[in-house]
């Protein structure tokens, strides 16, 4: 019975909360920033050796 109640409760959609928006924004921002840094490192500090 408890599971049934939880099922219904979790089935209801609600718009993105501020916390979720923050998670998405920070994750993506950090990802893009780190990507830039890692690309820089890979081209300067650890360059490809042919």
């Amino acid at each position, binding site marked *: 019975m408890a*599971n049934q109640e*939880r*099922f219904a409760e*979790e*089935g*209801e*959609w*609600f*718009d*993105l*909360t501020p*916390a*979720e928006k*923050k*998670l*998405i*924004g920070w*994750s*993506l921002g*950090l*990802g*893009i920033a*780190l*990507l830039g840094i*890692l*690309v820089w490192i*890979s081209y300067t500090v*650890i360059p*490809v*050796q*042919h």
Partner: protein
Amino acid sequence: MSQETTASRSPLFKTEDWWAVWLGLFIFALGLLKLAGVDVIGWVVKTSVWLDLSKALAPASKAYQGMPGIISLILTYLFLLLVTAIGAYSMGARVGRYITGFTLIFWITYACWIIGSYGYIAATPDQLAKLGIPWSLRLTGEAGFIIALIAGLLLGNLWPGFTRAVEEAVKPEWFIKTAIVILGATIGLKACQSTGLAGQVVFRGFCAIVEAYLIYWPIVYFISRKYFRFTPEWAAPLASGISICGVSAAIATGGAIKARPVVPVIVSSLVIIFAVVELIILPFAAQAWLYHEPMVAGAWMGLAVKTDGAAAASGALVDALIRSKAATALGVQWQEGWMLMAATTVKVFIDIFIAVWAFILAIIWSYSIDRRPGEKISASVIWERFPKFILGYAATFAILLLIGSGMTKETLKTLQAGVGQADAFRGIFFALTFFTIGLVSNFKKLKEEGMGRLAVVYLICLFGFIIWIGLFISWIFFHGITPPVVG
């Protein structure tokens, strides 16, 4: 067992999370005894892709090679029955009913797995020649999981009396968490084996984590929440399943955010199905367009193909296809295995951070997303929420890395054999999970939850950007690197 006895027992011995840790560590420890020259669990059954049924089953260790496969399977069943019954008893289950339930569940699950390993169903393109067959559905050995899920769904929905008869042993969460604890050792072993590889590939493999966790994840989460109207309970495991590595990432995320067990398992089954589609398409696309950039092609397989098995198979396939094309089109013969290594290295790095990501999500969900207005969150709430089996995963990974990193090649081989035996149990726990989750899933409810929408999100994300961003990142980090030339 009386309620009083169960209630007075430490939480360390009465929750599935902790019992997953104990059971996983126990099996892992038995596998490690191989290093001391003791082959304690070498009799565990392993299922191979087969055309002749008599060759489907065999003991995992060569030390037991004279043992018939069926005896190995019976021993595996008895061992699992004993250890899980002890755990179930400690958690308050009725042992008699557990034994009956587990027995039925085990044998049906294993039958599904054997069917799923049939050559025409499971063989990947690189195995076709060895088996001497012209085609197969290329579903890999993981097809058994899908068949187990379907069997569970059919039995659960068409014969509810069966589910009631075995319900004491229907413990999908416990099974999958135990499997993930053992998985830590397998990933640790792969990491050990990577330490001797070219530093460039390892560094670039690390870079892949950034993409999988920090770029893929939020985009998939946003799309599923905003445009497909999934709740966080579905969106988070879906994002992890599509972005990171199917089964384990989806389950760990499900645990961290306290999703119902059905959520990550349904996501995982989608991941397995789509991984097959990728396995059929991507290696051939790479051969056509990336034969002059072999390491880009290898890394791309690791980034885009979302299950370990299918990613490794894609890596092996792309390795064979591109080397053959380069020999004719470029007149160069590259050493075998480097593209496969790029694919598996990228995948291993992605897998390693599953525990870290689960921990981060547990904190975010406790502090923000699931927090009710005015509710105070203490460290104990985070601890309570944290999926404890992830500690087991981290422990087996760390132990393996510690003892394996200084080993000689020979000792590492022995360690690999021991871990391989423990890993055979992991496969069985995975299969048990899929069957039992099928038993407790109701078709009607799955439809209500939006199974069709899940598949559409997956399709859009995978072919809309995951494959292309993966190719872009692989190009940035791996272009210009070529394998050594033969001779």
